[in-house]
């Protein structure tokens, strides 16, 4: 399954400036692993001990993966995976 992963500004130094990365995978975890394979620096920045760091949000086509199956959330053709900092908003 080929998907587009949107990279936020804060992480683009690790992707050589790319705002999007095209990879394949059938779950969010597989997709992220494929992203890390292409851009090794990203792994440490957004994960810790195999889990997402606590201020990293990942969405599959707009829906937070924590409302789904987390890293096991399945990807379907045409999905878009978005990584965003969780520190925005509110008061």
């Amino acid at each position, binding site marked *: 399954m080929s998907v587009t992963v949107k990279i936020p500004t804060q992480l683009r130094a690790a992707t050589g400036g790319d705002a999007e990365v095209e990879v394949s995978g059938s779950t969010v975890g597989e997709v992220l692993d494929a992203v890390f394979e292409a851009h090794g620096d990203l792994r440490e920045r957004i994960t810790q001990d195999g889990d997402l760091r606590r201020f990293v949000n990942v969405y599959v086509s707009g829906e937070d993966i924590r409302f789904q199956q987390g890293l096991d959330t399945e990807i379907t053709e045409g999905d878009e995976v978005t990584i965003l900092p969780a520190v925005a*908003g*509110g*008061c």
Partner: protein
Amino acid sequence: MPAESLKCKECGATYELGAGYACESCFGPLEVAYDFSGLDAAEAKRRIQAGSQGIWRYGDYLPFSGRPQDPLEPGLTPLVRADRLADRLGLDAEVWIKNDAANPTHSFKDRVVAVAVAKARELGFKTVACASTGNLANAVAAHAAAAGLESYVLVPANLEEQKLLATGIYGTNLVGVRGNYDDVNRLCTQLAETRPWAFVNVNLRPYYAEGSKTLAYETAEQLGWELPDRVVCPIASGSLFTKVARGFQEWLDLGLVEGGQPVFNGAQALGCSPVATAFAEGWDVCKPQKPETIAKSLAIGDPADGPYAVEQARRSGGAIDSVTDEEIRAGIRLLAETTGIFTETAGGVTIGVLAKLAERGDIGGGERVVVYITGEGLKTLDAARDSFHMHEIDPDLGSFESEFEQRQEVAA
């Protein structure tokens, strides 16, 4: 200038004082770091007392090199003793209400927005924007209008009508998003990457959040340079809760006040209680929720500062509780009946939790408790509907007499 950098709260990495909010190394939130060395406590107090009648009197503790021009300065809201409220709750304690509805757009958001808009101007932005549950929308639209900046305000489309009306009137670009606050927030985080705008609670969030410290400074100053024993404070993202603690801590460290941090009690609505749940379960992170509550101004299902709010409550020996929509309505009514202050649903949450603490016996005799009321009742009128009976009579004396005689007979 005491503000020296933006510093990551997670890993300590530092950045220049520009528009940025997330650490590039670990995605942690950035916070303004200061160098207060050389500050003399007595001189610092004099500078505050000689300052303006609003938040800019605390300019030495905010991230600016000079005092910003602010045509709509918020702050110095009343701190009122609420003995009748304490009596009704059976408390042998000193209860104070910090009525932050008494700000230019009737909520504490004027504080954070005043700081963010001043920073936006300093950084050269022409347009300010925000993701809001309503109060922030009012404040951003108004402060942008006063400062002559363009603004975009994004809110959930199903917001209370009063909050939409009290935003659109300022001539902002009001955008109702078909989704909840967390959807709006995600959209704004994405927009902040492509638009050259100052999103007050996204790319200017480190500055914006600093505005909440002024609630702590005012509390201390209004109590005669003393800290309360306990605070009760609503939690949406957890930013206000943690920044009030930071404000107290800065003044403790600088010797402007003595003693220690108060106990921190957080208040959430049961229908959106990710932080209260994390506290109760002993988690270090908050599991996001889909909000379902009348307290829309607190309806953030994915609270950015949730983990820090949980830590603050634990560290201070406090707690984070939640209340039902019924308890929220009762809280609004109780505050109105005992203090003459009509608060919005968020205030009902806070008073509801105060009542819960009283019932549980958590508040000791003689404790000095400060309760933060962050918004105005006229913005959430639906919560007051059907909570009382209006007598309807014909315009003559007999009609009045019979209505009230009848009532007295019933009462007898």
